[in-house]
């Protein structure tokens, strides 16, 4: 009981989370030339303040400057969780609509659950490790 009611609600919430974070991603990576928010690309902002050369959002100084911040690490993990849940729950629903046998439905659910948990654990480890690498690369941290 309540299973679909809760899962569908989380599906919608995860969709909203993805929408917000994809918006931030677009601002950070693709709209820097239009809307400049210093905290999204700190290295670019610092370079511009010093009158230095333009630094691309995906360049190492920007990646490192974002990576050392706990807030960014948390946002990577949150986006990963939301995207995995939204995508895999949606995929599970699509497969169910093909009306396979009950045991196939159960097997698909278990496989997708394991894949989701596995990817989430791996992605979370990667986000934490990336932060450690970024911190190690910044002198004084």
């Amino acid at each position: 009981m309540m299973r679909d009611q809760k899962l569908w609600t989380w599906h919608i919430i995860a969709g909203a989370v993805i929408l917000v974070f994809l918006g931030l991603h677009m601002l950070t990576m693709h709209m820097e030339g239009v809307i400049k928010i210093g905290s999204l690309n700190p290295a670019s902002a610092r370079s511009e303040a010093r009158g230095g050369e333009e630094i691309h959002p995906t360049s190492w100084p920007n990646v490192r400057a974002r990576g050392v911040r706990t807030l960014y690490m948390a946002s990577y993990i949150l986006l990963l969780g939301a995207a995995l849940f939204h995508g895999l729950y949606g995929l599970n629903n699509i497969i169910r609509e093909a009306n396979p046998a009950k045991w196939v439905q159960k097997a698909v659910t278990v496989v997708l659950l394991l894949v989701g948990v596995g990817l989430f654990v791996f992605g979370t480890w990667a986000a934490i490790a990336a932060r450690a690498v970024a911190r190690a690369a910044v002198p004084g941290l």
Partner: protein
Amino acid sequence: MSEMTKVTYRIRRFDPTKDASPHFETYTIPYTPGLTVLDGLWRVKELLAPDLSWRSSCRMGVCGSCGMLVNGMARLACNTQISELGTDQLVLAPLPNFDIIRDLVPDLMPMIAAHQDLHPYLVREDVAERESPTGEFFQSPHELEQYLQFSYCIKCACCMAACPTVASDPVYAGPMPLGQAHRYNSDTRDGGFALRREVLADERGPWRCHFAGECSRVCPKGVDPAKAIQLLKRQLVLDIFHLRQQKCPAELAPKPKDINRRDGIPEAPKPSV
């Protein structure tokens, strides 16, 4: 279409005692202006195919019995003028997404069972008042508006036949039962939300609806079951966070005081039941 003198019915026939699978048979009958699809069926039965079966009763779009597939669209046969179809070639089949009992008669029991599971009536704790009413429950015109259009449903199953999710998902309750669940959940006289939620929260609930909107497009009464299902989803999501507006079942409206019956108006007869 004023030149039309004949109309051809291509009807999907199936007799489970004789046929292994359904097949089409063609009948041509004279056309007269004003002929409905149902009138034509009676003419076919009278003149050409006395063993042809379908359901019908009221002949005026009220009972919901004569839902069938007319030229690819689920319609009420009694409510459909042949002239409005724009052709003299009619193809009739039983409503899809249901088993066929015979010819144009679908087995609507799965729909009825789903409807029944969702308690499609006012659920109240004051059983005595429900069984032996002593007055009217208070309901404002605005509160009536919240469910009025959904109460026009005649359970003809046209929406169920048009729904792509019902076509593929045998567990999904379908637009009619879900629309009616919303109709009663939205009624301020009702207190049965928690009871219906037991069904709505699981896979029979509104979660598999893709909002294709076909149910609303084919509804012969202008009901919008697709909207009802989306509103139902909203209610259930708000319920998870305890944000659903809790409406206590409406109380009995106070009886008017100091009002005298006008002269010449008789007393109402005593209840016979």
